C-alpha cells in the first residue's frame, strides 16, 4: 500500500514534469503556430537565472518566481522583436532561425559559464516519508505549482481582456486588426508570456535536475511530443497529453525499466497521432481552451 501511494505520487510528478516543460511551448506553438526550437534553451536560461542569482546571494524564492520568468520573458520579447516577427507564417524559416537561436544560446552560455556549472543549490525542501518509502518534498511542491500554472493560464485566457484579444487574434488576425487590435502587440505579448512561463519552469526544475548549457536538448523532444499530441486546445490538450504520456512513462519505467519507459512514451505518442492526427483535443474536449 505504501509502495502504491509512493508510486502514484511519482507518476503524478512525472505528469507535472511534462506540464512544466511544455506549457510555455503550448502557448508559443499551440497558439501562435511558431515552431520554437529554442524552447529547450529558454528552459536552460531560466535555470541559469536561478543558479546565478542564488549564487550571488538572492533569495531562492525570489530567483525562481520573479527573476527567472522576468529575465526569460524579456529575452523572449527581444527575440520576438528582432527575429520571430519577420517570420510569421513561414514555418520552415522559423524552424531554421530558432534552431540557430538555440545554438547561439548554447554557445553564449558555454562561453560565459563554461561547459559545466556548479548547481550547488539544493531543493529547498527535505524528504517526505510514506511508510517505508521516501520522496523528495520538492516534487510534491512542483506538482502543486504545475496545477497552479495551468489554472493561471486558464484564468488569463478565459477572463481577461488580454486573453480574449489574444484568442481572437489567433483565430482571425485580419478580423482582429480591422476591429482595431494591434496584432503585432498581441503576438509579441503572447510570445513573451510563453517565454516567461518557460523561464519559470526552467528555474523550478534547476534544483532537482541540475543545469548545463546543453540541457535544453533533453527537454525539447518531450515538450513538442506533449504539445502536438495535445492538439489545438492548448490547456486541455497539454494537460491531457501530459497525463497520458506521463502515466505510461512512469508505469512502464517502474515495471520494466527506464529504457522501455521512454519507448512506451514515444510509442503512445505515435499511436495517438495515428488515431487522432489533430491531437487529443482534435477529437475530445474540442471546445475547451
Amino acid at each position: 500500500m505504501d509502495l502504491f501511494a509512493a508510486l502514484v505520487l511519482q507518476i503524478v510528478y512525472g505528469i507535472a514534469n511534462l506540464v512544466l516543460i511544455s506549457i510555455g511551448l503550448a502557448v508559443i506553438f499551440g497558439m501562435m503556430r511558431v515552431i520554437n526550437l529554442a524552447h529547450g534553451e529558454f528552459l536552460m536560461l531560466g535555470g541559469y537565472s536561478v543558479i546565478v542569482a542564488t549564487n550571488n546571494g538572492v533569495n531562492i524564492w525570489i530567483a525562481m518566481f520573479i527573476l527567472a520568468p522576468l529575465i526569460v520573458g524579456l529575452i523572449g520579447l527581444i527575440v520576438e522583436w528582432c527575429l520571430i516577427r519577420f517570420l510569421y507564417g513561414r514555418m520552415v524559416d522559423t524552424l531554421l532561425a530558432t534552431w540557430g537561436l538555440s545554438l547561439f544560446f548554447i554557445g553564449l552560455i558555454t562561453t560565459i559559464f563554461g561547459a559545466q556549472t556548479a548547481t550547488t543549490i539544493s531543493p529547498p525542501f527535505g524528504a517526505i516519508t510514506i511508510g517505508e518509502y521516501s520522496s523528495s518534498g520538492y516534487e510534491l511542491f512542483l506538482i502543486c505549482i504545475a496545477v497552479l500554472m495551468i489554472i493561471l493560464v486558464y484564468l488569463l485566457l478565459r477572463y481577461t481582456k488580454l486573453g480574449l484579444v489574444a484568442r481572437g487574434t489567433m483565430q482571425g488576425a485580419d478580423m482582429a486588426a480591422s476591429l482595431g487590435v494591434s496584432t503585432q502587440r498581441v503576438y509579441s505579448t503572447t510570445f513573451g508570456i510563453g517565454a516567461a512561463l518557460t523561464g519559470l519552469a526552467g528555474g523550478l526544475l534547476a534544483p532537482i535536475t541540475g543545469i548545463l548549457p546543453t540541457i535544453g536538448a533533453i527537454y525539447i523532444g518531450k515538450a513538442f511530443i506533449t504539445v502536438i499530441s495535445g492538439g489545438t486546445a492548448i490547456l486541455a490538450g497539454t494537460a491531457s497529453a501530459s497525463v497520458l504520456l506521463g502515466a505510461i512513462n512512469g508505469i512502464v519505467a517502474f515495471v520494466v525499466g527506464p529504457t522501455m519507459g521512454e519507448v512506451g512514451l514515444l510509442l503512445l505518442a505515435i499511436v495517438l497521432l495515428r488515431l487522432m492526427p489533430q491531437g487529443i483535443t482534435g477529437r475530445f474536449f474540442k471546445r475547451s481552451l
Partner: protein
Amino acid sequence: MTINRRNFLKGASATAAVLTAPAFIGQAQATDALKMAVILDQSGGLDIYGRPMVDASHLAVEEINAAGGLLGKQVDLTVYDPQSTIQFYTQYATKAATSDRVDVVQAGITSASRESIRPLLSRYKTLYFYNTLYEGGVCDTNNYCTGSTPGQTVEKLVPYTMNKWGKKVYIIAADYNYGHITADWVQKYVRDNGGDPVETEFFPLDVTNFGPTIKKIQAAKPDMVMSALVGGAHVSFYRQYAAAGMSKSVPIASTTFGVGNEHLMISAEEGDGMIVAYSYFQEIESAANKAFVKRFQDRFGADAPYLNELAARQYEGINLWAEAVKTAGTADRMKVIEALDAPTSINGPSGKVTIDPQTHHAVQNVYLAELKDQKFNIIQTYEQQQPTDTQLVCDLIATPNQSNFYFENGLKAAGID
C-alpha cells in the same frame, strides 16, 4: 514561403552545409616536425570530458617542445573538435591520417567514437592512442588503450565497498556499450565476492527523472548502489537520490562519478560518502603529481579545470608516445610500436605507467577515494595493476596483427562470466 518538398530540401541542404563547414577550416602545416593529431569533443554533450583533455594535450606538447622536442624536431599539435558527433570523428581521423599525415593520433572519449576511428586508423597505418577509461576488450596492434578498465578499478571497488556496506548491490548504468559491459563486470565481481546483484537497470542518456527508479531501490532495500551513469543529464540522479533522503541510508559507489567533475556540480551534502576508483586523482600526494598540478594551473590560470583521470591520462598517453619515439630513434610506426612493447614505461602524475605488450593496455596504479566536501580523499592505493580483463581474451604477442574488440557483444559473447 509555403512548405513544399523543394523548399524544405533547400533548407535542409543549407543546414547540412553549415554542419560540415568546420571541416574545411584548414590547419597550418609545418615542415620537418613530428605531427600529432588530437580529436576530442570540445562542444556538445561530451565537452565536460573533452575540454580538460585538450588542455592537458596542449600542456604535454608544449613541455616536450620546450625541452627541445623529439629527435631534435618540434612536435606539431593539431586539435580537432568533433562536436560530440561520431561522423566528425571519422572525418577528422581520415583527414589526420591521409591529408595531415600525422605520426600519431591521440583521440576519442566514448567507446563509440573509438570504434568509429580505430579500424580506419589501422587501415591507414596511423598509430592510435585512446586515453579514456573504458570497458576493456580492445585487442589491436595499432591501438594503445592507456585508460583504466574494469579489471583494474571495478575489481577493487566492488569488494572494498561490499565489505564496508553489505552484500546486496543495486546496479544502475547508462544504456549503451560502456554501461552494459561495465554492469556485466560489476555483476561478475559482486558474485565472485559472495554478494547478490539484486537488480540492474539501464538509462538512456537523456533521462532526467529518476523517481521511479528511486522507488524501486527503496523497495529492493539494497545495501549499496553501484552507478555507471554517464553525462550531464544523469547527474540529476544524485540530486534526486539525495533529495529523497536516500544518500544517508543506502550509499553509492560509482565507476564514472568524477571523471566529468560531477562532484563539483552537486553540493557537498549531496555527494558526501560516495566511493570511486580511478587511476588518477588531483589529490594524489606525490611530488610528481603536485608539480604537475601546479604546472597545469599555472598554464591555464584561474579557469583551470579540476584534473581527473581523463586529463591526466591524456597527458601521460602523449608522454608514453614521446618516450617510445625517443627510444626508437624514429617516429616510424612499426619501430615505435616495438619500442612501446619493449615495454615503454614513464613516471607520470598518476605514478608509474607501463605498456602491457600482450594487450597494448597499461599497467597502472589504481586509487580508491571517498568524496567529502567536494574533494576526493584517497583511502586505498593499489600499485601496478594489470589489465586482467583484457588479458583474458587478448594476446598480441601470440597473435600479432589483430584489430578486434572482444567485448563488443558483451562478456558472454567473449566467453567470460
